[in-house]
Protein backbone atom coordinates (compact mmCIF):
# COMPACT_ATOMS: atom_id res chain seq x y z
CA UNK A 1 0.00 0.00 0.00
CA UNK A 2 1.29 3.41 -0.91
CA UNK A 3 1.35 5.77 2.04
CA UNK A 4 -1.08 8.64 1.55
CA UNK A 5 0.26 12.08 0.91
CA UNK A 6 -1.03 14.57 3.45
CA UNK A 7 -3.45 17.10 2.00
CA UNK A 8 -6.03 19.44 3.44
CA UNK A 9 -8.91 17.55 1.91
CA UNK A 10 -10.25 14.03 1.76
CA UNK A 11 -11.14 14.67 -1.86
CA UNK A 12 -7.50 14.90 -2.85
CA UNK A 13 -6.84 11.52 -1.28
CA UNK A 14 -9.11 9.98 -3.87
CA UNK A 15 -8.62 12.22 -6.88
CA UNK A 16 -6.63 15.31 -7.85
CA UNK A 17 -8.70 18.47 -8.13
CA UNK A 18 -8.37 18.26 -11.89
CA UNK A 19 -10.65 15.22 -11.84
CA UNK A 20 -14.36 15.44 -11.14
CA UNK A 21 -15.12 12.62 -8.74
CA UNK A 22 -17.97 10.23 -9.45
CA UNK A 23 -20.49 9.23 -6.80
CA UNK A 24 -18.99 7.80 -3.63
CA UNK A 25 -20.64 6.46 -0.50
CA UNK A 26 -19.26 5.23 2.84
CA UNK A 27 -21.26 3.64 5.66
CA UNK A 28 -19.66 2.74 8.99
CA UNK A 29 -22.60 0.90 10.63
CA UNK A 30 -22.12 2.30 14.12
CA UNK A 31 -24.38 4.31 16.38
CA UNK A 32 -27.83 4.04 17.85
CA UNK A 33 -29.54 3.05 14.62
CA UNK A 34 -29.23 2.99 10.88
CA UNK A 35 -29.77 6.35 9.21
CA UNK A 36 -33.13 5.45 7.75
CA UNK A 37 -36.74 6.53 7.74
CA UNK A 38 -39.29 8.57 5.90
CA UNK A 39 -37.72 12.02 6.01
CA UNK A 40 -34.87 11.91 3.56
CA UNK A 41 -32.60 9.47 5.32
CA UNK A 42 -30.08 7.20 3.59
CA UNK A 43 -31.29 3.60 3.94
CA UNK A 44 -34.57 1.84 3.35
CA UNK A 45 -35.43 -1.31 5.30
CA UNK A 46 -37.51 -3.83 3.40
CA UNK A 47 -38.55 -7.39 3.99
CA UNK A 48 -40.61 -10.30 2.74
CA UNK A 49 -42.98 -12.78 4.40
CA UNK A 50 -42.40 -11.96 8.06
CA UNK A 51 -40.98 -8.95 9.89
CA UNK A 52 -37.22 -9.23 10.54
CA UNK A 53 -35.23 -7.64 13.33
CA UNK A 54 -32.76 -5.11 11.93
CA UNK A 55 -30.62 -3.19 14.41
CA UNK A 56 -27.16 -2.11 15.49
CA UNK A 57 -25.35 -4.69 17.61
CA UNK A 58 -24.29 -3.77 21.14
CA UNK A 59 -20.90 -5.44 20.87
CA UNK A 60 -17.34 -4.47 19.96
CA UNK A 61 -17.13 -4.35 16.19
CA UNK A 62 -20.64 -5.77 16.03
CA UNK A 63 -22.00 -3.74 13.13
CA UNK A 64 -25.61 -3.93 11.94
CA UNK A 65 -27.50 -7.21 12.10
CA UNK A 66 -30.49 -8.61 10.25
CA UNK A 67 -32.40 -11.50 11.81
CA UNK A 68 -35.06 -12.90 9.53
CA UNK A 69 -38.43 -14.22 10.59
CA UNK A 70 -38.79 -17.98 10.95
CA UNK A 71 -41.16 -18.56 8.06
CA UNK A 72 -39.79 -20.00 4.83
CA UNK A 73 -38.50 -17.33 2.43
CA UNK A 74 -38.45 -14.60 5.05
CA UNK A 75 -35.83 -11.95 4.45
CA UNK A 76 -34.59 -8.52 5.45
CA UNK A 77 -32.74 -6.03 3.27
CA UNK A 78 -31.34 -2.54 3.39
CA UNK A 79 -30.78 -0.46 0.28
CA UNK A 80 -31.42 3.00 -1.12
CA UNK A 81 -35.10 3.43 -1.98
CA UNK A 82 -37.74 6.10 -2.25
CA UNK A 83 -39.22 5.36 1.10
CA UNK A 84 -42.87 5.06 1.97
CA UNK A 85 -41.95 3.67 5.34
CA UNK A 86 -40.13 0.44 6.14
CA UNK A 87 -42.43 -2.30 4.97
CA UNK A 88 -42.97 -5.60 3.29
CA UNK A 89 -42.52 -5.67 -0.46
CA UNK A 90 -40.07 -4.21 -2.94
CA UNK A 91 -39.58 -0.49 -3.25
CA UNK A 92 -37.98 1.08 -6.28
CA UNK A 93 -34.27 1.48 -5.56
CA UNK A 94 -32.32 4.70 -6.03
CA UNK A 95 -29.84 3.66 -8.67
CA UNK A 96 -26.75 5.84 -8.31
CA UNK A 97 -24.06 3.33 -9.24
CA UNK A 98 -23.33 2.20 -12.75
CA UNK A 99 -23.57 -1.43 -13.86
CA UNK A 100 -20.32 -1.39 -15.86
CA UNK A 101 -17.89 0.90 -14.05
CA UNK A 102 -18.37 0.80 -10.30
CA UNK A 103 -17.01 -0.85 -7.16
CA UNK A 104 -18.62 -1.92 -3.92
CA UNK A 105 -16.70 -3.06 -0.84
CA UNK A 106 -18.43 -4.70 2.13
CA UNK A 107 -17.30 -6.23 5.39
CA UNK A 108 -19.98 -8.68 6.47
CA UNK A 109 -20.55 -12.15 7.84
CA UNK A 110 -23.15 -14.86 7.93
CA UNK A 111 -23.78 -15.53 11.60
CA UNK A 112 -25.27 -18.99 11.32
CA UNK A 113 -24.06 -21.06 8.41
CA UNK A 114 -26.92 -23.53 8.49
CA UNK A 115 -29.27 -25.02 5.99
CA UNK A 116 -31.34 -22.43 4.23
CA UNK A 117 -29.43 -19.29 5.11
CA UNK A 118 -28.01 -16.76 2.70
CA UNK A 119 -26.21 -13.46 3.25
CA UNK A 120 -25.45 -11.16 0.34
CA UNK A 121 -23.91 -7.74 -0.09
CA UNK A 122 -23.23 -5.64 -3.17
CA UNK A 123 -25.57 -3.90 -5.59
CA UNK A 124 -29.23 -4.32 -6.40
CA UNK A 125 -31.51 -2.76 -8.98
CA UNK A 126 -34.57 -3.66 -6.96
CA UNK A 127 -37.76 -2.22 -8.41
CA UNK A 128 -41.29 -2.08 -7.15
CA UNK A 129 -42.90 -5.44 -7.79
CA UNK A 130 -39.67 -7.41 -8.07
CA UNK A 131 -39.83 -10.80 -6.45
CA UNK A 132 -36.66 -10.83 -4.38
CA UNK A 133 -33.24 -10.52 -5.97
CA UNK A 134 -33.80 -13.08 -8.70
CA UNK A 135 -35.72 -10.86 -11.10
CA UNK A 136 -33.58 -7.76 -10.74
CA UNK A 137 -30.45 -6.27 -12.08
CA UNK A 138 -27.93 -7.18 -9.41
CA UNK A 139 -24.30 -7.87 -8.65
CA UNK A 140 -23.51 -9.17 -5.21
CA UNK A 141 -21.61 -11.83 -3.33
CA UNK A 142 -21.88 -13.96 -0.24
CA UNK A 143 -23.57 -17.20 0.63
CA UNK A 144 -26.50 -19.00 -0.90
CA UNK A 145 -28.48 -21.76 0.73
CA UNK A 146 -27.85 -24.43 -1.88
CA UNK A 147 -24.12 -23.72 -2.38
CA UNK A 148 -21.28 -24.83 -0.11
CA UNK A 149 -18.94 -22.00 -1.05
CA UNK A 150 -19.00 -18.23 -1.27
CA UNK A 151 -20.20 -17.08 -4.67
CA UNK A 152 -20.45 -14.13 -7.00
CA UNK A 153 -24.02 -13.52 -8.12
CA UNK A 154 -25.22 -11.32 -10.98
CA UNK A 155 -28.53 -10.70 -12.66
CA UNK A 156 -29.36 -9.02 -15.97
CA UNK A 157 -33.00 -8.31 -15.16
CA UNK A 158 -34.22 -11.61 -16.58
CA UNK A 159 -31.84 -14.24 -15.28
CA UNK A 160 -29.74 -14.35 -12.13
CA UNK A 161 -26.92 -16.86 -11.82
CA UNK A 162 -24.08 -17.70 -9.43
CA UNK A 163 -20.41 -18.43 -9.91
CA UNK A 164 -19.10 -20.41 -6.98
CA UNK A 165 -15.61 -19.78 -5.58
CA UNK A 166 -13.32 -22.21 -3.74
CA UNK A 167 -13.90 -20.36 -0.47
CA UNK A 168 -16.01 -22.39 1.96
CA UNK A 169 -18.74 -20.64 3.90
CA UNK A 170 -17.93 -19.75 7.49
CA UNK A 171 -19.06 -17.40 10.23
CA UNK A 172 -16.10 -14.99 10.11
CA UNK A 173 -15.98 -11.40 8.92
CA UNK A 174 -14.74 -11.12 5.35
CA UNK A 175 -14.03 -8.24 3.02
CA UNK A 176 -15.85 -8.59 -0.26
CA UNK A 177 -14.96 -6.35 -3.15
CA UNK A 178 -16.90 -6.35 -6.41
CA UNK A 179 -15.57 -4.50 -9.45
CA UNK A 180 -18.09 -4.15 -12.24
CA UNK A 181 -17.01 -3.80 -15.85
CA UNK A 182 -18.87 -4.03 -19.12
CA UNK A 183 -17.42 -7.48 -19.81
CA UNK A 184 -17.28 -9.03 -16.34
CA UNK A 185 -17.75 -8.72 -12.60
CA UNK A 186 -14.73 -9.48 -10.44
CA UNK A 187 -15.08 -10.69 -6.86
CA UNK A 188 -12.16 -10.40 -4.43
CA UNK A 189 -12.48 -11.80 -0.90
CA UNK A 190 -9.95 -10.71 1.72
CA UNK A 191 -7.67 -9.35 -0.96
CA UNK A 192 -7.64 -12.35 -3.28
CA UNK A 193 -9.44 -12.49 -6.60
CA UNK A 194 -11.92 -15.36 -6.32
CA UNK A 195 -14.24 -15.08 -9.30
CA UNK A 196 -14.59 -13.37 -12.65
CA UNK A 197 -18.17 -13.70 -13.83
CA UNK A 198 -19.10 -12.93 -17.44
CA UNK A 199 -22.72 -14.09 -17.70
CA UNK A 200 -25.98 -12.37 -16.79
CA UNK A 201 -24.30 -9.10 -15.99
CA UNK A 202 -26.44 -6.16 -14.85
CA UNK A 203 -27.56 -3.80 -17.59
CA UNK A 204 -28.41 -0.60 -15.71
CA UNK A 205 -27.74 1.34 -12.53
CA UNK A 206 -28.06 -0.06 -9.02
CA UNK A 207 -28.03 0.70 -5.29
CA UNK A 208 -25.85 -0.71 -2.49
CA UNK A 209 -27.60 -3.54 -0.64
CA UNK A 210 -27.15 -5.90 2.28
CA UNK A 211 -29.50 -8.83 2.27
CA UNK A 212 -30.16 -11.67 4.70
CA UNK A 213 -32.65 -14.38 3.90
CA UNK A 214 -34.01 -17.66 5.08
CA UNK A 215 -34.83 -20.25 2.48
CA UNK A 216 -35.62 -23.61 3.92
CA UNK A 217 -34.60 -25.18 7.22
CA UNK A 218 -35.51 -24.29 10.76
CA UNK A 219 -35.22 -21.14 12.79
CA UNK A 220 -34.38 -17.54 11.91
CA UNK A 221 -31.22 -16.70 9.90
CA UNK A 222 -28.79 -13.93 10.76
CA UNK A 223 -26.15 -11.84 9.05
CA UNK A 224 -24.25 -8.69 10.02
CA UNK A 225 -22.40 -5.94 8.17
CA UNK A 226 -19.99 -3.35 9.51
CA UNK A 227 -18.59 -1.45 6.52
CA UNK A 228 -19.76 -0.59 3.06
CA UNK A 229 -18.22 1.65 0.44
CA UNK A 230 -19.42 2.15 -3.12
CA UNK A 231 -18.22 4.36 -5.92
CA UNK A 232 -18.34 4.90 -9.64
CA UNK A 233 -15.01 4.79 -11.39
Amino acid at each position, binding site marked *: *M*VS*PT*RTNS*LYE*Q*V*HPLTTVMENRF*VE*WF*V*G*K*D*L*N*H*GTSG*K*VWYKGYSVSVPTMS*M*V*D*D*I*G*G*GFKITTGTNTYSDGRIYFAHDNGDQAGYEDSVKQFTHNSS*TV*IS*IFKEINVTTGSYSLSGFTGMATGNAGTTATQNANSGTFQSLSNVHCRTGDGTTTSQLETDLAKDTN*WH*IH*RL*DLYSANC*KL*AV*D*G*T*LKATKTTNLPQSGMSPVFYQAKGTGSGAKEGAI*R*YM*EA*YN*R
Partner: protein
Amino acid sequence: MATYEDIRNIFTRSSNNPTGVLPTTSYTLDIKNHFVEWFGGKELDDRWNESQSGTGTFAMSDSVNGGFTLYPASSNTNYAQINFNNKRPFAHNGSVMISVWKQPANNGGASTVGMCNSAGTSPNSWNKDFYGTRLWTTDTHYKLRTADASTVTESANSDVARNTNFNVFRWEATSSNVIMSVNGGTSVTKTTNLPTAKLQPILMSWNENGNRDYLHVSYVEAWNT
Protein backbone atom coordinates in the same frame (compact mmCIF):
# COMPACT_ATOMS: atom_id res chain seq x y z
CA MET B 1 -0.80 14.10 14.39
CA ALA B 2 -2.99 11.28 13.19
CA THR B 3 -6.27 13.16 13.12
CA TYR B 4 -7.41 12.09 9.68
CA GLU B 5 -4.77 9.50 9.01
CA ASP B 6 -6.94 6.46 9.14
CA ILE B 7 -9.72 7.71 6.94
CA ARG B 8 -7.14 8.89 4.46
CA ASN B 9 -5.76 5.40 4.36
CA ILE B 10 -9.18 3.97 3.78
CA PHE B 11 -9.92 6.32 0.91
CA THR B 12 -6.50 5.81 -0.57
CA ARG B 13 -6.52 2.06 -0.57
CA SER B 14 -10.04 1.88 -1.97
CA SER B 15 -9.27 4.15 -4.87
CA ASN B 16 -9.38 2.75 -8.36
CA ASN B 17 -7.41 -0.40 -8.84
CA PRO B 18 -7.39 -1.92 -12.31
CA THR B 19 -6.99 -5.45 -11.05
CA GLY B 20 -10.03 -5.17 -8.85
CA VAL B 21 -8.16 -6.56 -5.87
CA LEU B 22 -7.17 -4.69 -2.76
CA PRO B 23 -3.62 -5.05 -1.48
CA THR B 24 -3.45 -7.68 1.22
CA THR B 25 -1.74 -5.30 3.61
CA SER B 26 -4.89 -3.23 3.96
CA TYR B 27 -7.03 -5.83 5.64
CA THR B 28 -5.82 -5.75 9.18
CA LEU B 29 -6.85 -2.13 9.35
CA ASP B 30 -9.96 -2.48 7.22
CA ILE B 31 -11.54 -5.10 9.40
CA LYS B 32 -11.85 -2.78 12.40
CA ASN B 33 -14.81 -0.59 13.18
CA HIS B 34 -14.37 3.02 12.22
CA PHE B 35 -16.60 6.04 12.59
CA VAL B 36 -16.45 9.66 11.47
CA GLU B 37 -18.96 12.40 12.30
CA TRP B 38 -18.57 15.88 10.82
CA PHE B 39 -21.52 17.53 12.60
CA GLY B 40 -22.63 19.28 9.46
CA GLY B 41 -26.11 19.58 8.03
CA LYS B 42 -29.61 20.26 9.23
CA GLU B 43 -29.60 17.99 12.27
CA LEU B 44 -28.07 14.90 13.79
CA ASP B 45 -28.89 11.67 12.00
CA ASP B 46 -30.31 8.49 13.48
CA ARG B 47 -26.94 7.21 14.58
CA TRP B 48 -26.99 9.51 17.58
CA ASN B 49 -29.22 9.38 20.64
CA GLU B 50 -30.11 12.52 22.58
CA SER B 51 -30.40 11.94 26.34
CA GLN B 52 -31.25 14.55 28.92
CA SER B 53 -32.75 15.36 32.28
CA GLY B 54 -35.02 18.34 32.14
CA THR B 55 -35.49 19.87 28.70
CA GLY B 56 -32.16 20.84 27.24
CA THR B 57 -31.22 22.12 23.82
CA PHE B 58 -29.66 20.12 20.99
CA ALA B 59 -29.00 21.93 17.73
CA MET B 60 -26.69 22.36 14.79
CA SER B 61 -25.15 25.79 15.16
CA ASP B 62 -26.02 28.26 12.41
CA SER B 63 -22.55 29.77 12.52
CA VAL B 64 -19.18 29.30 10.83
CA ASN B 65 -17.40 26.32 12.44
CA GLY B 66 -20.19 26.20 15.00
CA GLY B 67 -20.64 22.46 15.00
CA PHE B 68 -23.34 20.84 17.09
CA THR B 69 -24.36 22.43 20.39
CA LEU B 70 -25.57 20.91 23.64
CA TYR B 71 -27.06 22.97 26.48
CA PRO B 72 -28.70 21.50 29.59
CA ALA B 73 -31.93 22.58 31.26
CA SER B 74 -31.85 25.15 34.05
CA SER B 75 -31.88 23.02 37.21
CA ASN B 76 -28.99 21.54 39.16
CA THR B 77 -27.78 18.19 37.71
CA ASN B 78 -29.72 18.60 34.46
CA TYR B 79 -27.71 17.40 31.50
CA ALA B 80 -27.84 17.28 27.72
CA GLN B 81 -25.99 14.32 26.23
CA ILE B 82 -25.53 12.57 22.89
CA ASN B 83 -24.48 8.94 22.68
CA PHE B 84 -25.18 5.68 20.81
CA ASN B 85 -27.98 4.63 23.15
CA ASN B 86 -25.80 1.90 24.64
CA LYS B 87 -24.86 0.36 21.31
CA ARG B 88 -21.16 -0.02 22.14
CA PRO B 89 -18.89 -1.06 19.26
CA PHE B 90 -15.59 0.22 20.69
CA ALA B 91 -13.12 -1.69 22.84
CA HIS B 92 -12.13 -0.45 26.30
CA ASN B 93 -8.65 -1.88 25.77
CA GLY B 94 -8.03 -1.05 22.11
CA SER B 95 -9.69 2.04 20.70
CA VAL B 96 -9.06 5.65 19.77
CA MET B 97 -11.33 8.67 19.87
CA ILE B 98 -10.57 12.05 18.37
CA SER B 99 -12.82 15.03 18.97
CA VAL B 100 -12.78 18.74 18.22
CA TRP B 101 -14.86 20.59 20.80
CA LYS B 102 -15.08 23.71 22.93
CA GLN B 103 -16.87 25.17 25.90
CA PRO B 104 -16.98 28.83 24.86
CA ALA B 105 -17.59 30.23 28.36
CA ASN B 106 -17.22 29.29 32.01
CA ASN B 107 -20.45 30.13 33.80
CA GLY B 108 -20.16 27.25 36.24
CA GLY B 109 -21.30 24.37 34.04
CA ALA B 110 -19.25 21.38 32.90
CA SER B 111 -18.51 19.58 29.64
CA THR B 112 -17.61 15.93 29.18
CA VAL B 113 -16.31 14.30 25.99
CA GLY B 114 -15.03 10.77 25.62
CA MET B 115 -16.07 7.12 25.63
CA CYS B 116 -18.43 5.60 28.19
CA ASN B 117 -20.20 2.35 28.87
CA SER B 118 -23.39 3.65 30.51
CA ALA B 119 -25.01 6.39 28.50
CA GLY B 120 -27.87 8.51 29.68
CA THR B 121 -27.41 7.67 33.31
CA SER B 122 -25.33 10.59 34.39
CA PRO B 123 -23.21 10.77 36.49
CA ASN B 124 -22.46 7.12 35.60
CA SER B 125 -21.64 8.39 32.13
CA TRP B 126 -18.48 10.00 33.40
CA ASN B 127 -17.87 7.96 36.59
CA LYS B 128 -18.06 4.37 35.41
CA ASP B 129 -16.10 2.67 32.61
CA PHE B 130 -15.07 5.90 30.95
CA TYR B 131 -12.14 7.56 29.24
CA GLY B 132 -12.01 11.14 28.06
CA THR B 133 -12.04 14.60 29.53
CA ARG B 134 -14.39 16.34 31.90
CA LEU B 135 -13.97 20.10 32.05
CA TRP B 136 -15.19 21.27 35.46
CA THR B 137 -15.71 24.91 36.35
CA THR B 138 -12.70 24.96 38.69
CA ASP B 139 -10.34 23.30 36.22
CA THR B 140 -7.51 25.48 35.03
CA HIS B 141 -6.17 22.94 32.50
CA TYR B 142 -7.54 20.00 30.54
CA LYS B 143 -7.10 16.61 32.23
CA LEU B 144 -7.42 12.97 31.35
CA ARG B 145 -10.22 11.23 33.20
CA THR B 146 -10.70 7.46 33.39
CA ALA B 147 -13.00 5.19 35.34
CA ASP B 148 -13.21 1.47 35.87
CA ALA B 149 -16.39 -0.19 37.07
CA SER B 150 -16.27 1.46 40.48
CA THR B 151 -13.65 4.21 40.72
CA VAL B 152 -13.01 7.37 38.74
CA THR B 153 -9.80 9.41 38.85
CA GLU B 154 -8.17 12.20 36.89
CA SER B 155 -4.63 12.93 35.80
CA ALA B 156 -2.68 15.96 36.83
CA ASN B 157 -3.09 19.00 34.64
CA SER B 158 -2.03 18.66 31.03
CA ASP B 159 0.13 21.42 29.60
CA VAL B 160 -2.87 22.97 27.84
CA ALA B 161 -4.72 25.62 29.84
CA ARG B 162 -8.48 25.73 29.53
CA ASN B 163 -9.64 28.09 26.85
CA THR B 164 -12.75 28.99 24.93
CA ASN B 165 -11.48 27.84 21.53
CA PHE B 166 -11.91 24.59 19.68
CA ASN B 167 -9.18 22.10 20.58
CA VAL B 168 -8.32 18.71 19.12
CA PHE B 169 -8.40 15.93 21.71
CA ARG B 170 -7.07 12.46 21.03
CA TRP B 171 -7.49 9.62 23.52
CA GLU B 172 -6.13 6.14 22.96
CA ALA B 173 -7.03 3.23 25.23
CA THR B 174 -4.92 0.10 25.42
CA SER B 175 -4.92 -2.78 27.88
CA SER B 176 -2.34 -1.02 30.05
CA ASN B 177 -3.07 2.70 29.80
CA VAL B 178 -5.00 5.58 28.29
CA ILE B 179 -3.06 8.33 26.55
CA MET B 180 -4.40 11.80 25.85
CA SER B 181 -3.01 14.59 23.72
CA VAL B 182 -4.47 18.04 23.15
CA ASN B 183 -3.72 19.85 19.91
CA GLY B 184 -1.01 17.32 19.19
CA GLY B 185 1.04 18.41 22.18
CA THR B 186 2.59 16.54 25.05
CA SER B 187 0.79 13.38 25.96
CA VAL B 188 -0.73 12.56 29.32
CA THR B 189 -0.68 8.87 30.27
CA LYS B 190 -2.86 7.23 32.88
CA THR B 191 -2.52 3.63 34.07
CA THR B 192 -5.02 3.47 36.93
CA ASN B 193 -8.78 2.96 36.93
CA LEU B 194 -8.93 2.01 33.27
CA PRO B 195 -12.31 1.17 31.72
CA THR B 196 -13.29 -2.50 31.78
CA ALA B 197 -16.24 -2.77 29.40
CA LYS B 198 -17.23 -1.98 25.80
CA LEU B 199 -17.71 1.68 24.96
CA GLN B 200 -19.56 4.30 22.93
CA PRO B 201 -18.90 8.01 22.31
CA ILE B 202 -20.46 10.46 24.74
CA LEU B 203 -20.66 14.26 24.68
CA MET B 204 -22.40 15.94 27.59
CA SER B 205 -23.12 19.39 28.92
CA TRP B 206 -23.87 19.46 32.66
CA ASN B 207 -25.70 21.90 34.94
CA GLU B 208 -23.96 22.34 38.29
CA ASN B 209 -25.94 24.20 40.95
CA GLY B 210 -28.05 25.96 38.35
CA ASN B 211 -25.03 27.02 36.30
CA ARG B 212 -24.66 25.84 32.72
CA ASP B 213 -22.56 26.30 29.61
CA TYR B 214 -22.81 25.39 25.96
CA LEU B 215 -20.74 22.55 24.57
CA HIS B 216 -19.86 22.77 20.87
CA VAL B 217 -18.51 19.77 18.98
CA SER B 218 -17.41 19.90 15.36
CA TYR B 219 -15.76 16.51 14.81
CA VAL B 220 -15.70 13.01 16.25
CA GLU B 221 -13.73 10.08 14.90
CA ALA B 222 -13.35 6.73 16.61
CA TRP B 223 -12.01 3.30 15.75
CA ASN B 224 -10.85 0.05 17.24
CA THR B 225 -7.12 -0.55 17.10
